[in-house]
């Protein structure tokens, strides 16, 4: 309770408005969303001799609070089948909201495996969530093409489809100067993973006949921000998709329903949601989001622009703050990913990076995807620090924060992927290993 906002003076956007994706992680009550913040009554007082699980503190969840949890489920018929299932009332993972409600973060510490449930996928909106009638949806592709064309959602779904697992990460996914009471969700909860279904963008480019002088394309959304980003046309011939499916169902509205651009391994902002228009051009448009935002100051007086690829990164998601562990065997668990391709290794260090020990990678290790890693470790009860780092198939090694600062200076807010870790105190409490940004 009462923890400080994770915000340093130099992290505040000088313009006044904090950048919701990059500058701060606001207060979160320890344990909130982790163990459940409601009071449950489970006992024998309910109907049919069963206990009633009751949400006393949260009217928003009154409906699910009606679930009956009998003392002995073998002695009473359970509820019938239902049209749509829900989570166990004992499980209440939640996204973590930015105070301006412009972004929310995936509860990485509460997830198993590598797929993010669609309703927990991180969000970053620049004009709120657009709600679009799929029957009125269309995508215009024009500019330097032979045949400017319009495709309905029905058209898009009739093209040859593909389903591929990819992570999606916002480039503003690291809070500098975070304090000890920080959750993985707050450190890098702006990454999520789904199986995305759609069509290769190259299929559409083939249909419209992209002209040879087209080197970039503009992707434009149908939200209130009419979000625009310029993308090199090579990405379309590589692996860019128009996605309409996510984890087996239609895209969620907050993820771009009914169709979005998806650029595997690249910063999330470029994968424009609610995609309404693609314009092929002979250069970038220099939109607001690719100039005054989502660019990275360097220490030579320049600013890096069109920094699309997400560098390799890892995080230990268990144990983490605010866990309390006991001496004995612990499975260190986490995820690793790289926008450049497959993860080659994930490693653990117990000595601040002096030596590293290979963790097990859960197969299949997919390119541009979160990979689950695990390391069995016997904690002896003494104060310890556990760090993780990853190396991808190109040989890129996840850097320390100091290496990042030495390479780029201190003024950058995006594309920060430093090695992070946790301290385990002798009483078993786990806290974030803090590191001053300087």
């Amino acid at each position, binding site marked *: 309770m009462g923890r400080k906002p994770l915000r340093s003076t130099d992290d505040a956007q*000088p313009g006044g408005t904090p950048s919701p994706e990059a500058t701060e992680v606001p207060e979160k009550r320890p344990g909130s969303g982790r163990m459940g913040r409601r009071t449950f009554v489970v006992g024998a007082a309910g109907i049919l001799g069963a206990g009633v699980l009751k949400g006393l503190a949260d009217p928003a969840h009154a409906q699910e609070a009606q679930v009956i949890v009998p003392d002995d489920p073998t002695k009473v018929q359970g509820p019938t089948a239902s049209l749509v299932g829900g989570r166990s009332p004992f499980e209440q993972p939640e996204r973590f909201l930015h105070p301006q409600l412009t972004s929310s973060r995936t509860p990485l510490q509460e997830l198993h495996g590598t797929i993010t449930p669609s309703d927990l996928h991180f969000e970053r909106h620049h004009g709120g969530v657009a709600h679009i009638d799929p029957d009125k949806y269309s995508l215009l592709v024009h500019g330097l093409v032979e045949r400017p064309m319009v495709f309905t959602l029905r058209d898009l779904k009739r093209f040859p489809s593909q389903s591929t697992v990819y992570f999606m990460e916002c480039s503003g996914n690291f809070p500098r100067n975070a304090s000890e009471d920080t959750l993985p969700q707050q450190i890098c909860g702006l990454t999520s993973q789904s199986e995305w279904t759609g069509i290769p963008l190259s299929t559409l480019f083939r249909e419209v006949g992209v002209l040879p002088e087209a080197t970039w394309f503009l992707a434009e959304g149908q939200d*209130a921000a009419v979000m*625009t980003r310029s993308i090199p046309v090579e990405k379309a011939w590589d*692996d860019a998709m128009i996605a309409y499916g996510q984890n087996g169902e239609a895209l969620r509205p907050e993820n771009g329903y009914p169709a979005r651009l998806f650029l595997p391994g690249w910063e999330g902002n470029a994968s424009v949601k609610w995609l309404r228009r693609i314009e092929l051009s002979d250069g970038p448009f220099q*939109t*607001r989001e690719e100039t005054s935002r989502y660019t990275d100051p360097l220490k030579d007086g320049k*600013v890096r622009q069109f920094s699309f*690829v997400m560098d390799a990164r890892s995080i230990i998601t268990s144990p983490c703050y605010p866990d309390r562990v006991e001496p004995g065997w612990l499975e260190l668990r986490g995820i690793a990913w790289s926008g450049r391709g497959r993860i080659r290794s994930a490693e653990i260090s117990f000595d601040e990076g002096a030596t590293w020990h290979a963790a097990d990678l859960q197969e299949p290790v997919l390119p541009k995807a979160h990979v689950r890693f695990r390391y069995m470790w016997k904690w002896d009860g003494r104060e310890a620090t556990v760090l993780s780092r990853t190396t991808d198939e190109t040989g890129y090694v996840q850097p320390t924060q100091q290496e990042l600062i030495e390479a780029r200076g201190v003024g950058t807010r995006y594309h920060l992927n430093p090695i992070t870790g946790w301290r385990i105190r002798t009483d078993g409490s786990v806290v974030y290993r803090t590191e001053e940004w300087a």
Partner: protein
Amino acid sequence: MRTAGSLAVLAAFAGFGCGGGDAQSGGNGESSLQGVASSEPIPESFELGRTATDEEIDTLAIAVMPDGRGLPPGGGTPGEGAEIYAAQCAACHGPEGEGGGGGQLVGRIPGDPFDWGDGMQGPRTIGSFWPHATTVFDYTRRAMPWDRPGSLSDDEVYAVTAYLLFLNELIGEEDEMNAETLPRVVMPAYGRFVPDDREETTRVH
């Protein structure tokens, strides 16, 4: 799977991507699309979608390029823009663009230094950080004002753009901004932006 995809990418480049006038001809042996297995030969076209009309393109294609392509007819002066700004923008961005609920839009640092990477402090405003004046028009027209995005006329957007450039001491009080003049405004941040080259190395960069 990835190999097949890569081959298909090559096929796409060879047959369609750079085909220019030959894009429609296709049919030079491709049997698969990128990442898509096919049970039958891929046709030249799946014959889905329809040709876009000039009218619907004109309606939707609002993007402006740094050289001014895409700018509409019309124009506006800082004086005209001041009134519109006061009514539509000041509530969030402050009476003189100093910021409020919305970001700070106005402010230069003496000498226009650009040492942000070294931790230089200062407001990242249109005058101190934006490399292209055309972006002000493009963004204002598509996304502002916050409570009624896209509601300003082209003349009004030109006028607000002119006012903001004037407040940033980039144009004179009488200078009209239009499709000819706006792209010629030289921004202090112009030339400061460099393309990403991280993938040329495996080092931290």
